């Protein structure tokens, strides 16, 4: 098809190209430029060289804290969420009658989880006198100060992220269901037990999907905003002040666009380095069976 003209296909992707240039490529370059300037929205951007970056890494205690909290948050949520998603997907993959019902139930939080209404709900169920404390109180556990204590506050927003494991689970489940059943039979005849089958057959076959989920979840987790913004407002003591909140405050509250762009670029570089590291390491552990997936 498409023999009419070499450029016919280009006609169809033209809207994408226009959008890419205008809303992605240009802003991408512009934010890089802005990160070397001082710009308060009123006067023109003033070139300040590496000032923003020097300040970030040497004098900005809030940035240090925010970066630390962000990394902590990502390294807590992503593994927990993926492990849970995989566990439930594996259980669902057995011959269960109500598989659709369970899949739906586990998926609902993912579809709603990013919404402000859920963040509001979280704020109330983890309140001092909230649902969670009432329930753990009923079994005799002392109420936990979920928001007041800096250590617990991060866990509270982490829980919200982990609660939304459903989309990763659905992807895992689709991959598990496409694994060739004859491999299980062969292994079973050879005397392999359940763990061996999972570890040496299932797991290698779904590594492409593990990789995909890992990358997507990491990129998303680094950009978490709604949860901490609504639930803890970054506090207490900036213990949930993730970098996107800091960027938002700098850009749209103090109108310090240059500085905010510099923080955004640091965040971007961190995400890119981790993503590239994942791609690089994937050569060692991701198994593509004749490039079966996508």
């Amino acid at each position: 098809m498409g023999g009419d003209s070499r450029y016919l296909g280009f006609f169809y992707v033209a809207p994408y190209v226009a959008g890419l240039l205008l809303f992605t490529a240009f802003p991408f370059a512009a934010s890089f430029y802005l990160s070397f300037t001082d710009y308060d929205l009123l006067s023109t951007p003033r070139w300040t060289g590496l000032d923003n970056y020097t300040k970030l890494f040497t004098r900005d205690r809030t940035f240090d804290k925010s970066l630390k909290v962000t990394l902590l948050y990502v390294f807590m949520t992503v593994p927990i969420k993926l492990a849970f998603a995989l566990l439930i997907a594996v259980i669902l993959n057995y011959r269960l009658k109500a598989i659709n019902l369970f899949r739906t139930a586990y998926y609902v939080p993912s579809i709603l989880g990013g919404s402000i209404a859920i963040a509001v709900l979280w704020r109330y169920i983890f309140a001092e006198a909230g649902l969670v404390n009432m329930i753990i109180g009923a079994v005799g556990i002392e109420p936990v100060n979920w928001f007041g204590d800096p250590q617990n506050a991060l866990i509270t927003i982490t829980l919200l992220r982990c609660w939304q494991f459903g989309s990763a689970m659905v992807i895992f489940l689709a991959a598990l269901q496409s694994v060739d059943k004859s491999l299980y039979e062969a292994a079973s005849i050879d005397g392999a037990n359940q763990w061996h089958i999972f570890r040496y057959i299932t797991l290698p076959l779904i590594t492409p999907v593990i990789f995909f989920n890992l990358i997507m979840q990491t990129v998303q987790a680094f950009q978490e905003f709604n949860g901490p913004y609504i639930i803890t407002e970054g506090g207490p003591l900036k213990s949930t002040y993730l970098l996107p909140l800091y960027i938002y405050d700098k850009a749209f509250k103090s109108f310090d666009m240059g500085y905010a762009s510099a923080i955004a670029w640091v965040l971007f570089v961190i995400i890119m380095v981790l993503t590239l590291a994942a791609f690089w390491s994937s050569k060692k552990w991701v198994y593509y069976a004749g490039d079966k997936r996508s």
Partner: protein
Amino acid sequence: MTASYDINPQGLAPGTEPATALEIRLRRRSRISSAVRYGVLLVFGLIMLYPLIWLIGASFKTNAEIFASPSFWPEDPTLSGYINGWQTSTPYTFGRFFWNTFLIITPKVIGTAISCTLVAYGFARFEFPGKRILFVTVIATLLLPNVVTRIPQYLLFRDIGWLDSFLPLWVPSAVAGDAFFVFMLIQFLRAIPRDMEEAARVDGANTLQTLVYIVVPMLMPAIISVCLFQFMWTMNDFLGPLIYISSVDKYPVSLALKLSIDTTEAFDWNQILAMSVLALAPSLAVFFIAQKYFIEGISTGGVKG
């Protein structure tokens, strides 16, 4: 070594031959393990869903009762949360905010569906100079964090005078700006055989006619998935409206909810929870009507939820 692993998760047909002692033992063992699985799934499922269930019950409770009992059932059911919450502390009711949400979502979903279908068709069915590089940008933007482009985008929309309008929310999506959907539709298109399209072309249809009359009908489930995901994401979007919309009369539901937790006194919880239920209701309704498309979309495209 046990051989109790379910070698056929899709359902082992009961043996047609007489059951041996080993088979009986295996069957009993698999019955126990499936009971364990159901148990685990039920317990976790309940823990997962209880916050949502509790929310619905709590929205009918009085303020005093919300923090008095962890049970779902309101002892003294009242609609006052809904009635007072709907009024809000602003001159507008939640009806206005729902209408604004609708005004944001509808053009956005339509624009997304049309533009992403065109673009995915271009990528999946044509060869043209620069295609490979452009496709790499689709994947790259999939991974590109929005935070990097957000500030210049804001400045761009400010310079063209679109702030405090819905245009910054609509326009990027109308030019296939959500790489996820382009990617997802390409995945679907790759799985569709080209025979019918080639037949249509032989019969003299041009590529656009082929797209509209042959490809779109076959691609419909995927396009519906795209629309549903865009609907959900826009319902859930908070940062976009937070940055671009400044007049309260243009607020979508997400901003209105934030406003209500900022402005209501500590004792109006039931109003906020009631409005949260309403805010979630469209998403829940759409999800339950069309869950098949969500699952299909996410399994095929690996799209985030």
